[in-house]
């Protein structure tokens, strides 16, 4: 891996002479492979198109007199220009394919390309959600097959497949809880959430109409069971707990917590964002969880895509399953998978579920993220029950390896709390006074890495959350550890050059305050100097 190449340079050899690297400025602003790219609004125009379509003939018109006569203002490019524009933009992005991306709590694992191939099979990609059911039996089987895997892997009773992302799944789970409480005439008002929870948890509970109260943590970072117990009562609808937690710790007392919450008449929502650490090792259903969303884009490797689409099926306990949203799929004794929508929900429930189903309604127009289901099922079948267990073991092994290889140079506030799960948490304690977590993160960019999650969880000062995932080799981890040790040393020593990092990225540090103070959120044609014809008067470029 570190063998010198013909020039004598080898990976990992620090660049010593900065002046030797810095060349003259270029006319274009480009630097060889680092290419500047204007906006489509600056290089395209409204008369250019990259598709061949018949010119409008001015024939029949039944638009009701609503013809769009004003200019729309969307620029076009030819196909070669389009491909080049987006290819050049892509090269200003960091992705898992390019390197190590240890963004804590996001599970940035390798995205197998078989998944992409399968999702593009015409029988999956080119099917309309409202086709007659007899023409989409395979699609329903995919949903049902994935549903069964998710139920078996979590030890739960049922699953709602339609939520579109993790936060949408959280909402689904909380709405199931509220519906279950309302069904028994119980109007509880409070949901308990630990301070370390992801911001979506309190936001979701508030959206579902609940008041939020914090759950205190004990000294090793876990939920304080006694404090929780003393807060439970007839006004508490439930708790939202992340397990493994955002501190990277397994909540040892989860079963006792669940028992206490159930005893008090509440429900347990588990944020399943970190399921990757325990898949195949322990089942949330065995710990008393009532609802848990699963981010298919984390544990089950569907691509993150620069910020979605995600997919957030929610597994449910027997008590909550009857309230799952419509539509849902169900396989009956004859082996047929049915699509249950508003139309036949009551009759279907009567015939097959003894009439217990009382869905809280519909959360989205169609059946959920089918394109993610095909990818996730492909991934699950590839790994199988044995491979998924190995996934969790390797993810946890990699994280502990990072934790124990760095805790002498970075403060690990919960290093004493036992092994970590899938992610290692550090704080900025020990940094020189004017050096921040942000500075360290930006210096990691210069070293060729995507930084870890910064300043989350909020309960740790200057938090750095490192999640390596199982798809990284030991060699990759060793190189990262070397880089992070070096940057941590510089942070402790107060190296001023950290404060101006990154130095080698396509952009230097960006001014986020300026962006928020004077928001420019859409392109506007610059006003030309007086007397100059505008672009439209010139007829385009």
């Amino acid at each position, binding site marked *: 891996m570190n063998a010198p190449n013909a020039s004598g340079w080898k990976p990992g050899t620090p660049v010593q002479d900065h002046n030797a690297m810095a060349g003259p400025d270029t006319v274009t602003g480009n630097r060889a492979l680092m290419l500047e790219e204007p906006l489509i609004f600056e290089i395209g*125009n409204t008369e250019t198109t990259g598709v061949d379509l018949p010119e409008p003939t001015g024939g029949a*018109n039944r638009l009701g007199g609503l013809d769009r006569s004003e200019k729309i203002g969307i620029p076009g490019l030819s196909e070669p220009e389009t491909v080049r524009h987006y290819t050049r933009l892509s090269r*200003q992005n960091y992705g898992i394919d390019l390197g190590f991306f240890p963004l804590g709590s996001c599970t940035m694992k390798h995205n197998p390309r078989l998944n992409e191939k399968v999702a*593009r099979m015409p029988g999956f990609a080119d*099917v309309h959600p409202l086709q007659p059911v007899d023409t989409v039996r395979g699609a329903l089987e995919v949903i049902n097959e994935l549903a069964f895997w998710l139920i078996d892997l979590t030890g739960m009773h049922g699953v709602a497949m339609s939520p579109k992302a993790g936060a949408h799944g959280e909402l689904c789970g909380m709405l199931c809880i509220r519906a279950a409480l309302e069904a028994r005439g119980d109007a509880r008002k409070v949901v308990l959430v630990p301070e370390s929870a992801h911001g979506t948890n*309190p936001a979701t509970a508030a959206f579902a109409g609940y008041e939020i109260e914090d759950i205190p943590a004990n000294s090793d970072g876990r939920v304080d069971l006694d404090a929780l117990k003393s807060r439970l009562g007839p006004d508490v609808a439930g708790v939202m707990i992340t397990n493994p937690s955002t501190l990277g710790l397994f909540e040892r007392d989860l079963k006792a917590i669940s028992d206490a919450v159930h005893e008090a008449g509440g429900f347990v929502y588990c944020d399943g964002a970190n399921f990757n650490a325990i898949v195949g090792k322990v089942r949330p259903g065995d710990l008393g969880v009532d609802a848990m969303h699963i981010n298919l884009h984390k544990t089950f490797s569907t691509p993150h895509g620069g910020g979605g689409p995600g997919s957030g099926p929610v597994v449910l306990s027997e008590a909550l399953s009857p309230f799952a949203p419509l539509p849902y799929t169900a396989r009956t004794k004859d082996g047929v998978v049915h699509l249950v929508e508003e139309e036949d929900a009551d009759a279907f429930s009567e015939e097959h579920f003894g009439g217990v189903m009382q869905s809280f309604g519909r959360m989205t127009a169609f059946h959920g993220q089918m394109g993610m289901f095909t990818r996730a099922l492909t991934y699950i079948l590839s790994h199988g029950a044995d491979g998924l267990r190995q996934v969790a073991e390797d993810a946890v092994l990699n994280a502990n390896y990072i934790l124990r290889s760095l805790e002498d140079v970075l403060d690990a506030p919960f290093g004493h709390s036992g092994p970590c799960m899938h992610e290692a948490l550090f704080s900025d304690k020990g940094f020189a006074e004017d050096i921040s977590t942000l500075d360290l993160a930006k210096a990691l960019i210069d070293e060729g890495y995507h930084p870890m999650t910064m300043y989350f969880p909020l309960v740790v000062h200057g938090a750095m959350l490192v999640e390596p995932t199982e798809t990284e080799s030991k060699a990759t981890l060793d190189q990262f550890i070397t880089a992070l040790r070096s940057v941590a040393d510089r942070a402790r020593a107060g190296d001023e050059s950290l404060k101006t990092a990154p130095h080698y990225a396509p952009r230097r540090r960006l001014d986020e305050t300026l962006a928020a103070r004077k*928001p420019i959120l859409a392109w506007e044609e610059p006003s030309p100097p007086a007397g100059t014809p505008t672009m439209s008067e010139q007829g385009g470029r």
Partner: protein
Amino acid sequence: MRYLPLTDADRSAMLEKIGAPDIDALFSDVPEEARLDGPIRGLPMHASEMAVEKHMRRLSKKNLAASDAAFFLGAGAYKHHVPASVDHIIQRGEFLTAYTPYQPEIAQGTLQMLFEFQSQVAHLYGCAVANASMYDGSTACWEAVAMASRIARGKKRKVVLSGALHPHYAEVMKTMAKFTDDEIAHAKPAMQASPDTDGLISRIDDNTSCVVVQYPDILGRVNDLQPIADAAHEKGALLIVVNTEPVALGAIKSPGEMGADIVVGEGQSIGVGLQFGGPYLGLFAVRDPKHVRMMPGRLCGETQDAEGKRGYVLTLSTREQHIRREKATSNICTNSGLCALAFSVHMTLLGEKGLRSLAMENHRLACIAADKLAEVPGVSVLNDAFFNEFTIRLGTDARAVVRKLAKQNVLAGVSLGRLYPQHDELSDGLIVAVTETSTEEDIETLVSALKEVLS
């Protein structure tokens, strides 16, 4: 296992470094009685790429792909040709395997694309500002209603939905409103040639926070929204316009031009494909920049770097859950980034010229189809005006007809019985969508198959 690079030798060396005797020691915090002692029984073990592909291909073959049929389904999802370069670009690893651009210095590709996307959507909708996308049209629609409620500061609780709003969207509104105490006023669509604008206006009162209208509507009808906007504004309510077919806006006036305050929609038509309903692309825009800080979802904005070079960042995040927690404008975290990229690439390939040509080609074919279908005995066309989708009445249960035609590989449309099972009087309605992918031969196939079934 092909996705796991660690070797057994690596694992041993790493455990030694950690100081753990074996892997189970790392799971010692899991209560022993809950620990699984091996792979979960009854589930299959790992499988080769070839075996998995074969299994999935077998499942895919049980579906009738739209391209293998004469295809006329719409009602919220439309089949359009997606240029090959779109799929190539969205599969570049730098886009596909990136995440939300939390580190803008190494995410300018995603960020500049989002800025361009927001600008394209704003122009398309006739609005000032669009966000970086939502899950899909139906959830974007609910977020718009929630935003209108915030603007009314909870003092106005009534949400007036047009009867011709997609019924699944209306169901989403009703579901969510159960938990937020908004009062949803909804009716079934009136089966008439033009939408019942007067009826809708009469339902707006001083307690109305917003009016939600679909354009073109669920039956494919298009009408001037300005009178509705005026009536809503007179009562201090916002007009939310929902568009499920963005291609239409290459032919008909934008909602912003007619006074819509919030415009939301489904962007799937451009670049994304059918995918059995998801992932899709929620579009969200506001006409007046003063409403920007009330918007849900991620926003990308222009700024400068330390050397004064132009660059882009996520901005106005003080609205969002990771800062505001329970006081956030929405619980949304992930958006639909890769679908936004597909939309943006396709829209760049089209440009205004291509979008207009595409829209008029859709309209031309739809007019041909409407005329030919009107000649089928027993069939009447409902709409006065339409874009690429219209409703026909068959005088018999349309669901049964759709099922019969599907057996001949003719996917004739979406029956109103499927969408409004509780309203028998709508059951003879069929929504027919005609896009550039429907050839005149396909239209002939539909017409003759329908003739045969109805005779």
